[in-house]
C-alpha cells in the first residue's frame, strides 16, 4: 500500500509540474513575457494588454499579492533577483524605502502629457502612474439631520461640535490611515501632535483597516460616525455603485473635506535584475499612455498621471477638485515615518 501512496503522490506532483510548465511555455514561444508585480487590488480592465501584445509581441502577466507594504517587503528581500520585471504601485509613502533597498533599475518615461509635477517627485528612479487623495469623507444626509455644517480643516475636527463623529483606520496598520497622519503633519508641521491629542480627546475612533472604518463605523453603512477617512474617489464610487441607482444627475451622497486631502502618488518601475529591461521600459511607456490611463479611474479608482487622459463622465461629474492637496516629498517620509508612527502610537494608542 505504501507504494500505492507513493505512486499517488508522484502522480500528483507530475500533474502539477506539467500544468505549471505548460502555463509558461505557450506564451514564451511568441517572444518575451513580462511579469508585472502588483498589489492585490490591481484589477486592470480585462484584455487591456491585448493590443499592447499585438503591437509589440510582448506578452504580459500579472502576479499579485497582499497590499503595497507586503509587496515592497518582498521586493526588498528579493532585490536583484526579482519576482518579475515591472513593479506596479509603490507609492510616495514607501518610495523612499524602495530606493533605499535598491529595488529599481532607474527609468523615467518620457511619454507626452505625463505630469511634470508628479515626475518631480519620482527621484529620477521610477515613473508616476496615478494618484489619488486620502481625505475625510462625510455623510451629507446625516450631517444635515444632526444640523451640523461639514468641517473645513483638521482644526475643525478638534472642535466640540464634531465630538465622536470621526473614524479613521490606524496609521500603524493601514496605508489610508498613514496618509491621513502625513496629511495632518503637512498641514501643521509644528503642532500636529497637539491636533492628534485634541482629536483623541474629541472621541476619535481608530480601527484596524479601511474596511472596518467605512463599512462598520461610517454612518452611511449603519455605523454612528458621519465622518470617515477614505478617498476623494469614494463619492463618485457611491454614485456609480449606488443600489438602488441614484436618479440621473443627483449629487453624490457623500463629499470630501478638501483641506484634509493628502496626495498619494503611485509609481511604476523596472525591477533591478530583470532580464528584459528594454521591453520593461516599453511596457511602462504603455502604462502611462492615454490608452491605459483612461481606463484606470473606473477599474482602479485612481486618477491618471497623464494629463492628456480624459476622465470618464461619472468621475468628472462627481469628483470634487482638490486644487491644493497636501503633499510630502518621499525622502522626508522615508526618513521620518517610523519616528512619527511611534509618536502617533504614543498619543493615540
Amino acid at each position, binding site marked *: *500500500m*505504501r507504494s*500505492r*501512496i507513493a505512486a499517488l*503522490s508522484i502522480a*500528483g506532483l507530475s500533474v502539477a509540474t506539467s*500544468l*505549471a510548465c505548460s*502555463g509558461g511555455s505557450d506564451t514564451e514561444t511568441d517572444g518575451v513575457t513580462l*511579469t508585472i*508585480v502588483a498589489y*492585490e*487590488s490591481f*484589477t486592470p*480592465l480585462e484584455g487591456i494588454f491585448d493590443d499592447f501584445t499585438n503591437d509589440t509581441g510582448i506578452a504580459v*502577466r*500579472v*502576479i*499579485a*499579492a*497582499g497590499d503595497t*507594504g*507586503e509587496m515592497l*517587503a*518582498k521586493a*526588498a*528581500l*528579493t532585490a536583484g*533577483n526579482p*519576482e518579475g520585471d515591472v513593479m506596479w504601485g509603490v507609492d510616495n509613502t514607501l518610495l523612499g524605502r524602495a530606493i533605499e533597498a535598491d529595488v529599481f533599475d532607474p527609468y523615467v518615461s518620457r511619454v507626452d502629457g505625463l505630469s511634470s509635477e508628479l515626475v518631480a517627485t519620482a527621484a529620477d528612479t521610477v515613473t508616476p502612474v496615478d494618484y489619488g487623495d486620502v481625505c475625510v469623507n462625510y455623510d451629507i444626509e446625516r450631517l444635515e439631520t444632526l444640523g451640523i455644517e461639514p468641517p473645513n480643516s483638521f482644526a475643525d475636527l478638534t472642535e466640540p461640535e464634531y465630538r465622536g463623529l470621526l473614524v479613521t483606520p490606524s496609521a*500603524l*496598520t493601514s496605508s489610508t490611515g498613514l496618509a491621513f497622519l502625513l496629511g495632518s503633519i503637512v498641514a501643521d508641521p509644528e503642532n500636529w501632535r497637539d491636533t492628534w491629542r485634541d482629536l483623541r480627546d474629541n472621541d476619535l475612533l*481608530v*480601527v*484596524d*483597516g479601511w*474596511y472596518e472604518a*467605512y*463599512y*462598520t463605523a461610517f454612518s452611511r453603512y*449603519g*455605523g*454612528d460616525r458621519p465622518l470617515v477617512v477614505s*478617498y476623494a474617489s*469614494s463619492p463618485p*464610487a*457611491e454614485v*456609480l*455603485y*449606488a*443600489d*438602488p441607482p441614484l436618479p440621473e444627475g443627483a449629487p453624490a451622497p457623500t463629499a470630501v473635506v478638501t483641506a484634509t486631502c493628502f496626495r498619494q502618488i503611485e509609481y511604476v518601475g523596472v525591477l533591478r535584475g530583470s532580464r528584459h529591461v528594454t521591453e520593461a521600459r516599453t511596457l511602462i511607456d504603455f502604462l502611462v499612455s492615454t490608452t491605459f490611463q483612461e481606463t484606470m479611474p*473606473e*477599474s*482602479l*479608482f485612481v486618477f491618471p498621471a497623464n494629463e492628456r487622459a480624459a476622465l470618464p463622465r461619472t468621475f468628472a461629474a462627481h469628483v470634487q477638485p482638490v486644487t491644493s492637496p497636501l503633499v510630502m516629498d518621499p525622502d522626508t517620509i522615508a526618513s521620518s515615518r*517610523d519616528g512619527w*508612527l*511611534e509618536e502617533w*502610537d504614543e498619543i493615540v494608542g
Partner: protein
Amino acid sequence: MKSSAEPLARLRGPLLAAPGFLLVLASIVIPVIALGLRTIDSDALFGVWSRPGIGDALSFTLLETALSTVVTVLLGLAPAWALSHHSMPGHRSALAVTTVPFMMPTVVVGAAFLGLLPDSIERGLTPVVIAHVYVNVAVVIRTIAPVWATIDPLLSAAARSLGAGRVRTFTTITLPLLRPALTSATAIVGFMCATSYGVVRMLGGNHATIEVEVYRRAILFDDLPGAATLAITQLIVAAVCLFSWLRKDRVVFTDSSHRSRRRDRPLARLVTAITIALTALPLISLVVSSLRSRGRWTLGGWRLLFGGSNMPGLQVDLAHVLPRSLLFALVATAIAVPIGVATSTAAVMGRTVVDRILLIPLGASAVAVGLGILITYDTAPFDFRGAWWLVPVVHAVVALPFVIRVVQPVQARIPGRLRSVAATLGASPARVWATIDVPLIARAIRTAIGLSIAISLGEFGATSFLSRSDTDTLPIIIERLLGRSGDLARLTGQGAAVVLLFVTTFALISTSRSDRTWGSS
C-alpha cells in the same frame, strides 16, 4: 504487528512518514530558518525583546490565549455533552454548522461578528475572547463529543447507586475518562488563539499578539531581523508545546454519533438549539446583509456575481473563480489526505513522533513562511515563485494537522489483534492495511476530506501573501471587493462571502453523513 527481522519492515514506518515530514520541512521549517539565516544578527536576537510593543504583545498573547482557551473549553462542554447524549434529526448537520465559523476567513466572520457586537464594547481583550470562542468552539465539540458518547452510562449509574452525587460522579468517573480529549482540545484551541492574527487585528484595538507583531516588524517597520527572531521563537515554542502536550492516542476532530443513541433529553435539545442559534446568527446576518441596501431588498450584488450585469471595477468571474477554488481545494485534499493517512499509519505502526511534527504548521507565522518561501525557492530549477500550484500545496500544509488529528486517533483504536490475525492468515502488510484499517477508518477519512476541502476554500492569510498569477480564490475576491466604496461593492463582496459560506457548509455536511459501518472495536 511487524517482524523486526525483516529490514524492509523496519523501513516501512519511516517511508510512510517521509512524505509528510518532507512537505512540512520544505514548506515551513526550511523557509523560516532560511529567512532567519539571511536576516538575523546578534543585535536582533537579543535586541528585539526590548523594542516597544514586544512586551505588551507577549503579555497580551499569553493573557488572551489563556482566557480564550479556558472560556472556549468550558463553554464547549455543554454542546459537546448535548450532541453526545441525544439523537435529534439533523444532528450531523448541526455539527457541521458549528464548524463553519472555524473555516471561514476572518474578514467574513469577523465583519459579520463585528456587526452584531454592541457599539459600546471597547475593542480589546473582551471582543477578542468572544470571537475566539465563537470560532474555536467547534474544536472542543468535535474533540470531546465522540469520546463522551463512548463512556458507558452504566459506569455513572453504578456510581450514583453507590451514593455518589452528580458532581462527584462527574469528577470521579466522567472527567478522568474525558481527560485525554480535553487536553487535546485545549492544546489545539490554545494554538489557534496564541497564533491568532485577523481577529486580533480587527477586534484587539491597539493590542497585538506575537503573530501580529511579526507582521508589523516585517512589513511596517522594515525590521526583518526582528520579525524573523520572533517567528523562529514562536516556532520553537510551538514545537516544544506540541511535544509536551499531545500524545498520539488523543482524539481530535472526529465525527461523533457513531455510538449507540441515547434517550432524548429536553435539556440536550435546548443546549443544541442555543448553540446552533448562536453560531448561525452572524452567518444569517451576513446573508441578509448581502440582500439589503438602503432599507430595501436587492439582488444587485447577486446579479453582478452571476454575470447578470456588468460594472467596471467589480468584474467577478464567478464562473471561473468558483471552479478554480474547488479545484485548488481538491488538489489540496489530494495531497493532504493521502499524506495524512500515511503519517497516521506510520504513527500507529511504530513509535514515531512524525504525527506530532506535522502539527507544527499550526504554530508557524504566515508572514515568515511566505517571505521564507520567497528566498528559499528563488533559483532555477527551483524558482517556484508565482507558480499556481504553490496555493493548493500551502492549503494542504495548513489542512494536514487536522487530517492527522481526525484519522490517527480512530486508527489507533483499531485493536492490534485484528491485524495480527490477518497477518497470521497470510495477508501481506498492504493487504492488512487495505482490509482491516481502511474499512474502519473510512468514515474518518471522509470527515478529513470534508475538513480539508473546507480549510482550503476558506484559507486567506497564506494565500493572500503568496505571489500568484491568475489564481484568485474566493476569499481573495471577497477581500478585494470589500476594499472598495459603494453599495454594489459591498453587496457583491458579501454575496461572494455567502457563496463561500454555502459551499463550505455543503462540503462539511456532505462528508459527515454516517454510513453506520463502524460497529466493532
